[in-house]
């Protein structure tokens, strides 16, 4: 018999080194007495020291990964079982793959038990604040693990709680993390830890996150076995929570519904515009009370679309300008006037079209003499898209004309590269959209560039005229497209 002493702290390295020596010296399993932390009985003890050869031996990686956890199991036979398998693996390299082998299955089971214990320790350690005065905060916990999992588990806590000092005291081993250094010490009796006010808050949370209508006690105890309860501050509340659950649910059911609070009517009124309006009247009413984005605040009024409700062409600009904001009608300012001239040149009947804007409120900053136009942002455009979509749904135009990038983005879902896409027709779920520039872009151009830009725009508008003439699908086809 060869007696192999193994320490309580550093068990894995010690067992690995010893097994390596024993295996190179061809010592069979039955000749070894593993003596962990002096727990072996005196009866078989012998004077033969374990061999110290450190010859490299080849072992399957699966085995090492498994043994690393199995050595922390509480079963006194763990070292012998591991060595016995190792002994077999010398001749039978494939044995690790035979998952149905009874000995391997037993070791896998032990590995699983240690993993579970490791996992439960990570879950159920509860630190208390030691309220230290030092630069780092300091915490301590008392825990009673099922297996010897403090040592292999401590690095996890070190990775997680690195900016504080902490100590996990167990009857087995104590782990200490101080100023970034992890160390292990003898196990101890339960220490007297100071009270921690956070535990009451945690208890409050635990009691209130519980839904009494879904009582499933066995689902709780299978994952949080009672043996852990004595060290969990929240567990003290469990018996009462279970006992009162049924009464609470019954009382909830028996209590008659209360009258709704007074503020509901007010809030409902504010929200009334929310469902998509099913008629032009509802659209107008909804628009008037719209507070979806902050633009409603400074603007004079909302500027709804204008034109016949059976128009074949829908024209969408960016947003009302200074004059539109005051008039409450779209396309009446300088840009609108320029558009009217160009439309006339292209032979487009502007009065027959429904005109509107992607954003229905004027966004501006105060200038010295007048209010200066500011581009609407994505959020404002996306809020207002609700109204634009309603208009498109109600109108079902044969063709929609997008004036400029903002309108194009709202209509096609893509606001990029207006210069490249101008003059083209894109398909959308609401029908074809012809893209052109916004007339205000022409107004800002140097006078020399104007004629050419105007000609290009007229050409776009002529395309609209031609398209409208060719697009005259019967009603049923249009329905199929939507």
């Amino acid at each position, binding site marked *: 018999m060869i007696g192999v002493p193994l320490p309580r702290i550093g068990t894995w390295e010690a067992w690995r080194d010893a097994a390596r020596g024993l295996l190179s010296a061809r010592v069979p399993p039955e000749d070894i007495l593993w003596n962990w932390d002096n727990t072996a009985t005196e009866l078989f003890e012998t004077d033969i020291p374990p061999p110290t050869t450190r010859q490299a031996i080849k072992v399957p990686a699966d085995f090492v990964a498994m043994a690393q956890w199995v050595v922390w199991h509480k079963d006194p036979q763990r070292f012998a079982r591991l060595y016995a398998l190792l002994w077999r693996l010398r001749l039978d390299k*494939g044995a690790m*793959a*035979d*998952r*149905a*082998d009874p000995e391997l*299955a037993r070791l896998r089971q032990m590995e699983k038990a240690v993993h579970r214990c490791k996992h439960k320790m*990570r879950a*159920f*350690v*509860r*630190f208390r604040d030691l309220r230290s005065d030092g630069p780092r905060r300091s915490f301590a*916990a008392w825990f009673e693990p099922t297996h010897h999992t403090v040592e292999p588990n401590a690095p996890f806590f*070190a*990775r*997680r*709680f*690195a*900016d*504080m000092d902490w100590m996990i005291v167990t009857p087995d081993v104590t782990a200490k993390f101080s100023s970034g250094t992890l160390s292990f010490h003898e196990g101890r009796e339960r220490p007297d830890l100071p009270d921690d006010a*956070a*535990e009451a*808050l*945690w208890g*409050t*949370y635990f009691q*209130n*996150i*519980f*839904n*009494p*209508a*879904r*009582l*499933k*006690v*066995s*689902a*709780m105890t299978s*994952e*949080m076995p009672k043996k852990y309860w004595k060290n*969990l501050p*929240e567990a003290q509340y*469990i018996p009462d*929570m*279970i006992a009162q659950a049924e009464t609470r649910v019954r009382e*909830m*059911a028996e209590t008659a*519904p209360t009258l709704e609070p007074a*503020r*509901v009517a007010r*809030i409902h009124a504010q*929200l009334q515009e*929310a*469902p*998509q309006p099913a008629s032009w009247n509802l659209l107008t009413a909804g628009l008037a009370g719209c507070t*979806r984005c902050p633009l409603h605040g400074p603007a004079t009024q909302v500027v709804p679309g204008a034109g016949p409700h059976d128009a074949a062409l829908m024209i969408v600009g960016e947003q009302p300008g200074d004059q539109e904001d005051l008039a409450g009608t779209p396309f009446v300012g300088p840009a609108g006037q320029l558009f009217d001239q160009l439309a006339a040149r292209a032979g487009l009947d502007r009065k027959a079209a429904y005109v509107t804007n992607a954003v229905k409120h004027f966004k501006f900053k105060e200038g010295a003499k007048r209010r200066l136009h500011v581009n609407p942002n*994505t*959020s404002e455009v996306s*809020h207002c898209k609700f109204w634009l979509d309603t208009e498109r749904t109600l109108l079902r135009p044969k063709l929609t004309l997008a004036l400029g990038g903002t309108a194009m983005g709202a209509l096609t879902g893509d606001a990029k590269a207006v210069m490249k896409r101008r003059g083209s027709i894109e398909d959308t779920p609401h029908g074809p959209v012809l893209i052109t520039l916004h007339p205000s872009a022409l107004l800002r151009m140097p006078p020399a560039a104007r004629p050419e830009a105007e000609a290009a725009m007229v050409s776009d508008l002529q395309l609209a005229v031609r398209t409208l003439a060719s697009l005259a699908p019967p009603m049923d086809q249009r329905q199929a497209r939507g």
Partner: protein
Amino acid sequence: MVSEHTMNNMTQTLQQKLAILSDAARYDASCTSSGTTRRDSRDGKGLGSTEGAGICHAYAPDGRCISLLKILMTNFCIYDCAYCVNRVSSNVTRARFSVDEVVSLTLEFYRRNYIEGLFLSSGVIRNPDDTMADMVRIAKRLRTVENFRGYIHLKTIPDAAPEIIAEAGLYADRLSINVELPTDRSVQAFAPEKNPATIRAAMGDVRASRDASKEKSHTGKRPPKFAPAGQSTQMIVGADGATDATILTRSTSLYDDYKLRRVYYSAFSPIPDSTAKLPLIKPPLMREHRLYQADWLMRFYGFGVEEITAGAQDGNLDLEIDPKLAWALQNRHRFPLDVNKAGRDMLLRVPGFGTKTVNRILTTRRYRTLRYDDLLRLGASLKKARAFVTALDWTPGNLTDSIDLRARFAPPPEQLTLF
């Protein structure tokens, strides 16, 4: 005039607020803290870590795990969703946390190892943008000021502006938007202020942002990570008349269209001060359980939604036996299966075999021909599987085709209660 609610607010302690705002959060099923990037604080400059699988730090007597501090920022809400305890027309006590309070609760709970991180949701106050912006402020403060490296899950307000949601994705591990109910019609009936199309658009935005965050730019630079643990959603089961087939079809499209990590099913649970619109029933927990089983079969076992719901009566799953067993009983002509020869796809369809067991069978049978006892050691549940497989020393004989096979698995009939 100072309203009653404002008065309450002024005198509420942190403990009272926590009670109100965790009580209000309990109907959200999600608790996962898994599947995000690996982080730790070994550099000593921050707090927290995430390493693959999250940890359930406690279990409540409802059997649900407690992994995150799941709270509402506020339970004031301007919406009137019938199924929700926080709806505007309910008389529950209202409260609101300050940014500091949420940050400090999260950090102090985390330091004591109570939680894996924060799951923050909120009622809609003022307007969706402001509410979402407040939530983002909390996440940003945790990440950038407090160097918190634990898990953050933000429940997105669907109507909030895309820019705000885009910012949320930079600080949160997971974003979620609840589709609430399985059909658009039910959403309109029960949650009049919510728009199903907007909810879908918001999920689409999150997916697009996640896709974009995975593409390197032309310089090879990686964009910042966006919600690395993905997005999830929740559907309430049993509040409307939707069948399991409708629900599962909806889930399939959610998984496919928006690349969701999880769809949670939440058995409708009676709420305090409920409206008359809704049934005050016991939550259909078994139905919820069967839906989760079916969901798993679709995601990990290669089942199609139409296979699972093919034999369902009135479109609902069998409550007495699990959906895999129900499928096997309807497809007995495909059994018994030789565990030593059958392919992975069919082994996965054997009741009582999980994915792990199947993997073990496949590796072990290269080494030896499997017997009945071997299957036990590989982790199979033979009580179920025995009727559907053959092994070297086992054949089910005519058990596979016996007419009382279903009765062997279904619980004995119960007498109906008289009251």
